[in-house]
């Protein structure tokens, strides 16, 4: 007999070793998330996948599922908490969507739409971080980086390289490149690497490929964030930009 947890009153089966997020995604239940990507080790930095488990707030991407858990995922209070987290991410960086090449294809932005975010609420940080345009085909705009470490994990766990890391403490934490000069050009990253493509926001971009998709045909013009994230898990082919 398979074990189950209950998410918003629905019985969800799981196997030992699965997290709440794993079980939810396998059952086509969407829990908002930003730093989590199936296939990479969980991270627990974005906190958007916070759910209530038996009355206690936990990150569903790192919390193991266990028999009989009563989990709340879709409550007004959780939506408000998640929206506040997204607002904190927006004001911490320079998320000027009107001039960003990733607009319409950006997971952070799509999550903000999903949570009906109208403003940043908090005072802007307006950080002044460095752009690294040294690489022939890639560019890093650190003002948009949300420190999800997807690029760090993709490089280490999938590409078999060690191109990125996060350095510094507190609000000064930022994405660094593990090359002697600290420049991306002096690392062994290649355009085909997963780390080059995995950035969910406009922080790591492929050069000369901005604004190619007409407005109305971009990923999140056509799909909700819940659809795209669930499709990736059940390995349906996503048809983002065509037809």
């Amino acid at each position, binding site marked *: 007999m398979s074990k189950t947890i209950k998410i918003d009153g629905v019985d969800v089966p799981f196997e030992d070793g699965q997290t709440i997020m794993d079980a939810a995604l396998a059952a086509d239940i969407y829990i908002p998330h930003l730093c989590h990507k199936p296939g990479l080790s969980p991270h627990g930095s974005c906190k958007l996948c916070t759910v209530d488990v038996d009355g206690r707030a936990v990150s569903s991407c790192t919390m193991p599922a266990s028999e009989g858990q009563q989990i709340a995922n879709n409550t007004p209070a959780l939506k408000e908490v998640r929206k506040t987290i997204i607002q904190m991410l*927006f*004001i911490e960086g*320079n*998320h*000027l*969507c*009107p*001039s*960003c090449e990733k*607009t*319409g294809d950006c997971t952070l*932005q799509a999550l*903000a*739409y999903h949570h*009906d975010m*109208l*403003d*940043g*609420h908090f*005072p*802007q940080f*307006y950080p*002044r971080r460095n752009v690294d345009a040294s690489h022939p085909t890639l560019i890093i705009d650190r003002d948009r980086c949300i420190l999800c470490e997807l690029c760090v994990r993709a490089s280490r766990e999938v590409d078999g390289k060690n191109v990125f890391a996060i350095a510094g403490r507190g609000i000064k934490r930022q994405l660094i490149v593990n090359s002697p000069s600290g420049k991306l050009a002096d690392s062994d990253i290649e355009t085909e690497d997963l780390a080059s493509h995995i950035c969910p926001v406009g922080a790591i971009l492929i050069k000369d490929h901005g604004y190619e998709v007409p*407005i109305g045909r971009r990923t999140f013009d056509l799909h909700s964030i819940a659809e795209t994230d669930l499709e990736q898990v059940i390995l349906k082919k996503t048809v983002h930009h065509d037809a």
Partner: protein
Amino acid sequence: MRKVRVATTSLAGCFGCHMSFLDMDERLVGLLEHIEFSRSPINDIKHCEPCDIGLVEGALCNADNVHVLREFRQNCKILIAVGACAINGGVPAMRNHFTLEECLNEAFLDEIGVDNPHIPNDVEIPLLLSKVHPLHEVVHVDYYLPGCPPPADAFVKIITDLLEGKEPSLPREILHYD
């Protein structure tokens, strides 16, 4: 019945939000049966009178912007931050990456083709703020209308909601930041 009075202004804006407002086209005719305009770039009224709704586009980039915003806040029962600039500084806030001195030197002293290079210093010219700021860092803002610019439908929706005494809400189709 008294018409609802609306004031509008552009601070560090591009007037694009006003153009998008006018993009409601013939719907403006119907709307004018319910609203009338106080100070706005589309009329000749010099100062904001006591109003029901104030629509403010653009961020704060100079002293005059702050002055005008405060006048709007004092006179408008409901103040709406319209567009990306008013909400988070928008594209003009990209100058926050540089010092004010660097910006002024680039524009008035160092740029190619500058004749008689000097930084304008007449007292008539409002001084620039050291950084660009969104509205809510200076006054209380009641509602936000995102977009660069917000679509005409969003203007229609928020004003209609307010006229009907409802809490404004934006459906997903007309909510975007770009």
